[in-house]
């Protein structure tokens, strides 16, 4: 419809604000079920070992214990890209924290006591901590049966041991490009393992009903349909027999897709005579046994002309997958592909390797591989500029993607709002202007970084929208409210298309028995994909209402319009009927009109496995620039972010308030990953800081002045022109801060995090070499 938008683009208050602020909402972690048992897992104390013997007899004998299970009772494996992960360890363990056995008991303390009574004998195997070491010739395969696993068709097995995915991008001829370059830089960068640290730790509830053969799982999982598929594939159980119900989710940031507590709960549920089982991880268990973000070692080599024109870029990235593949193959692909940055580069070569190690499992984490590439590429852009005597803004302006550019992976780009984000973000912190702060020993610097992020493609979202005889609208959408605000956005879409007030719209709880299929709540895909589906479903419902209303109002359908919850004749607005009244007259007091829709973004050719090329790698691209002003205390190495701007091209801000909140939340997380966060794992594979005492998230007092900036470069396929936003919020943050730190102290630091001690030693080293 071409009418003016009523709620789209407005800063509507979140629909879930009240129940969350008042604590009324029930999160997965809070859920209790009648007659429920409490599950606890035994986690491996060994990073790589054969299991010689498991003795569960003492645990079984403990009063109050209902079931004890080991890998022998759960002979199933699962995995999205690679089916490599056992429900409970099968014959060997591959990381400290791997679930080996589990107990269900009448209460949690008994379950925990029983777990302690399980005796396991291990025989040590070589432990691989560093991915570059793990793929050296002669290394033992952490997955000796790797070649026999079911794998996704897009995967390429590496030539060396322990590589579960080798992504290749080949464009032009980098050797020729470097030969033509006036300046070449070649550096190694490192990004450590970090964790999502969602406020709500992981949990799952499962119940198996022998009579009906149905398995029900209650879990705050951000991709319940995918999880359902994974369980069904693992158990060889019909999909209709499995039901996922989503209680509210207290954050996820990528950690709550895939299966974490679910397999343990399911393995136990088969042994409890139909009683439901809860498996809840505490914070330490969440740290060691759920998911982390990939550490990455990035080798980055760039060649430029004197005038700053990029000629060639070559990157080799080792993604530390941890013990199981999880989403490593797709992080490797979607993180490595745009790693050379949002620039026109004629000669590009990228090799991304996802490598198994004996560490906690790495997987999706907000940003999906973009922060690691940007940490290297965007710092190197600054280094190139400095070496050429150019302004870092100018070198980017010279090479940056603009509308219609052909990318180095063979896709012509449209809706590219990158330049505008660069200009606005740098202006917001007065980039180029000297800081008025003048304190001896305190260095001030400014820096920025640009990114481009693809979304998972192709994917499908389905939606249903009903309008009842009371004029109330219910949206059936499989998007999970993980805190990102989707329930508000999708309610706005339905309210807009049906012209009803926001408080007439209800989001149906996510239950795979009633909600139509959706791919996942990941990859910033929901506003675009589900937004399109809900929009079309709402239009479908609207059309049915209009058709029904036409004879009632005695005008043609074409003459009708909607507004304020009513259908009316365009030229005689007083001739109107509330939409509920239309439904009632047509279908009775309990009548419901239902609109349905499905949205799939069709990609062109599949990714070419030899060149990494694709004419449509992503439904849309998100562009952003963030700029930081920092101070560095030369005597302590402490980096403080003074202000930070973040300009994001969102296509169209369906809800500017929500966009700003997403940007701010992303930047705060990004600051944590830049300065504080690091999961410290020792040579034996043990996590040394699995608690909030020593794993440092930022608090509000560590946050600078945040300047979120919305840029709207209309995406023609998106609903109302929208793209996505959730993931890029932290992607350029560390690189922007790294550039600001280098600007402040004149020293480039290649390894994250920029915690005081690391910066201090970099300063000391520099002092020594200067002396």
């Amino acid at each position, binding site marked *: 419809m071409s009418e003016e938008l009523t709620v789209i683009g407005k800063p509507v208050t979140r629909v879930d604000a009240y129940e969350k602020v008042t604590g009324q909402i029930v999160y997965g972690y809070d859920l209790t079920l009648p007659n429920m048992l409490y599950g606890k897992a035994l986690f491996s104390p060994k990073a790589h070992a054969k299991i010689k013997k498991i003795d569960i007899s003492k645990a079984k004998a403990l009063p109050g214990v209902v079931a004890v299970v080991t890998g022998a009772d759960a002979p199933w494996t699962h995995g999205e890209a690679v089916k490599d992960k056992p429900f409970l360890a099968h014959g060997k363990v591959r990381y400290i924290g791997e679930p080996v056995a589990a107990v269900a008991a009448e209460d949690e*303390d008994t379950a925990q006591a029983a777990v302690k009574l399980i005796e396991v004998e291990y025989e040590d195997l070589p432990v691989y901590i560093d991915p570059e070491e793990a793929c050296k010739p002669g290394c033992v395969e952490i997955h000796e049966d790797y070649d026999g696993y079911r794998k996704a068709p897009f995967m390429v097995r590496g030539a060396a041991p322990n590589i579960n995915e080798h992504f290749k991008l080949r464009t032009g001829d980098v050797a020729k490009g470097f030969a033509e370059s006036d300046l070449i830089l070649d550096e190694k960068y490192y990004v450590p393992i970090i964790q999502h640290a969602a406020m709500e730790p992981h949990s799952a509830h499962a119940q198996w009903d022998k009579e009906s053969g149905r398995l029900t799982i209650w879990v705050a999982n951000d991709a319940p349909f995918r999880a359902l598929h994974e369980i069904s594939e693992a158990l060889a159980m019909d999909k209709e027999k499995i039901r996922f119900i989503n209680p509210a989710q207290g954050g996820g940031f990528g950690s709550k897709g895939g299966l974490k507590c679910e397999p343990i709960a399911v393995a136990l549920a088969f042994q409890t005579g139909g009683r439901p089982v809860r498996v809840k991880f505490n914070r330490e268990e969440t740290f060691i046994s759920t998911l982390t973000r990939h550490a990455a070692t990035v080798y980055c080599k760039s060649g430029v002309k004197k005038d700053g024109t990029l000629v060639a870029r070559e990157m080799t990235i080792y993604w530390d997958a941890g013990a199981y593949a999880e989403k490593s193959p797709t992080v490797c692909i979607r993180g490595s592909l745009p790693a050379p940055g949002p620039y026109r580069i004629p000669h590009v070569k990228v090799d991304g390797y996802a490598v198994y190690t004996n560490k906690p499992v790495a997987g999706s984490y907000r940003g999906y591989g973009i922060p690691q590439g940007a940490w290297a590429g965007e710092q190197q852009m600054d280094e190139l500029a400095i070496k050429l005597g150019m302004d870092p803004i100018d070198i980017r302006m010279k090479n940056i993607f603009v509308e219609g550019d052909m990318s180095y992976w063979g896709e012509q780009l449209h809706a590219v709002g990158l330049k505008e984000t660069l200009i606005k973000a740098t202006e917001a912190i007065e980039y180029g202007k000297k800081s008025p702060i003048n304190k001896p020993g305190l260095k001030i610097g400014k820096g920025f970084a640009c990114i481009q992020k693809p979304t998972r493609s192709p994917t499908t979202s389905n939606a249903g929208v009903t309008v009842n005889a009371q004029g109330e609208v219910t949206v059936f959408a499989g998007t999970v409210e993980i805190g990102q605000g989707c329930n508000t956005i999708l309610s706005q879409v339905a309210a807009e298309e049906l012209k009803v007030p926001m408080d007439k719209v209800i989001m149906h709880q996510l239950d795979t028995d009633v909600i139509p299929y959706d791919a996942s709540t990941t990859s910033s895909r929901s506003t675009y994909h589900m937004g399109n589906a809900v929009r079309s479903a709402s239009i479908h419902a609207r059309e049915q209402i209009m058709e029904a209303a036409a004879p009632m109002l005695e005008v043609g359908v074409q003459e009708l319009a909607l507004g304020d919850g009513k259908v009316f004749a365009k030229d005689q607005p007083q001739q109107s009927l509330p939409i509920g009244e239309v439904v009632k007259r047509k279908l009775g007091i309990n009548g419901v009109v239902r609109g349905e829709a499905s949205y799939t973004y069709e990609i062109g050719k599949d990714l070419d496995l030899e060149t990494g090329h694709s004419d449509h790698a992503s439904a849309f691209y998100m562009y952003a620039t963030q700029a930081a002003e920092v101070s560095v205390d030369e005597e302590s190495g402490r980096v403080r972010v003074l202000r930070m701007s973040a300009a994001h091209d969102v296509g169209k801000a369906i809800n500017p308030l929500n966009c700003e909140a997403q940007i701010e939340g992303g930047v705060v997380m990004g600051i944590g990953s830049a300065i504080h966060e690091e999961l410290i794992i020792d040579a034996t594979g043990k996590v040394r800081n699995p608690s909030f005492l020593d794993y440092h998230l930022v608090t509000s007092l560590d946050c600078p002045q945040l300047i979120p900036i919305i840029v709207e470069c209309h995406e023609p396929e998106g609903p109302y022109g929208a793209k996505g936003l959730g993931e890029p919020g932290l992607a350029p943050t560390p690189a922007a801060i790294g550039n600001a730190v280098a600007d402040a102290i004149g020293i480039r630091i290649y390894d994250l995090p920029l915690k005081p001690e690391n910066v201090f030693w970099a300063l000391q080293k520099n002092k020594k070499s200067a002396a």
Partner: protein
Amino acid sequence: MKRTEAFDFYQPATLQEASQLLKDNGPGGRFLAGGTDLVIAMKEKGLLPKYIVDLKRVPGLSGIRENSDGSIAIGALTTLYTIETSALIKKKYPFLAQSAAEVGSIQIRNRATIGGNISNASPSADTSPALVALGVTATIASASGERKIPVEEFFKGPGQSVMNADEILTEITIPKTAANLVGEYIKFSPREMMDLAYVGVAAVYNLAADKKCTGVRIVLGAVAPTPIRAKRAEAVLEGQILSEALAEKAGQTAAEEAKPISDVRSSADYRRAMVGTMTKRALLNAATGPAKSWYDRRDRRY
């Protein structure tokens, strides 16, 4: 979080009774004040007290009082928030108020007591360096009487003090100090708040009009098994005119005196270097008057 094992819980109404309970019930008992150390130890670190004696029903254990001799007494059960906001403490010993304000979060400080912070004897406890620097005396009572001991001699190692199991810390007394006494406490940790001190430094001295410093006390936290005085560093400044160069030298000397360890938070070498930097800053900051706000306090660490 673990549910704790069953234990007996007593709420005595007198000191006598409280101490007697520990004597009569034998080993394995603990006193409870705010519980911000004890309850965590029980729920997360496997501490299993057989019984707990709550001190909060014993009257007279909290509050701040100025004595006629110019000394100030602080009851052991006084909360850190009370100390942080006390007009008297802020006026006379702003750095002590500041050290209390550095602890955890407002929620923690509303429960945590100064007696608990001392009795717990953590090397990184934030109030200890300032208390040692002020020459504070601890009053310790039991069913069999009372004794007084300088806080400087109170600590014996991580989690260990001179107190016997049946002894209760009742009060600490800040002796009368010179009118020109100044001081500063700097807590150094990567996060601005909600962090443990990687290094804590309290510096206290009498500052004459000509900037001559006497009665210099420099006390280091988190870099030895107990809070320690950096006596050689004190000597560097004692009787001297305060200058940047002297403060720097005192800092370097303090760094030599520190006995830090390497752990997951920090290397020993870095801690040692930070003792140097923060001691210098504490000495210089002390002369400039107290921090005016949280932001001021934050910026003074740099």
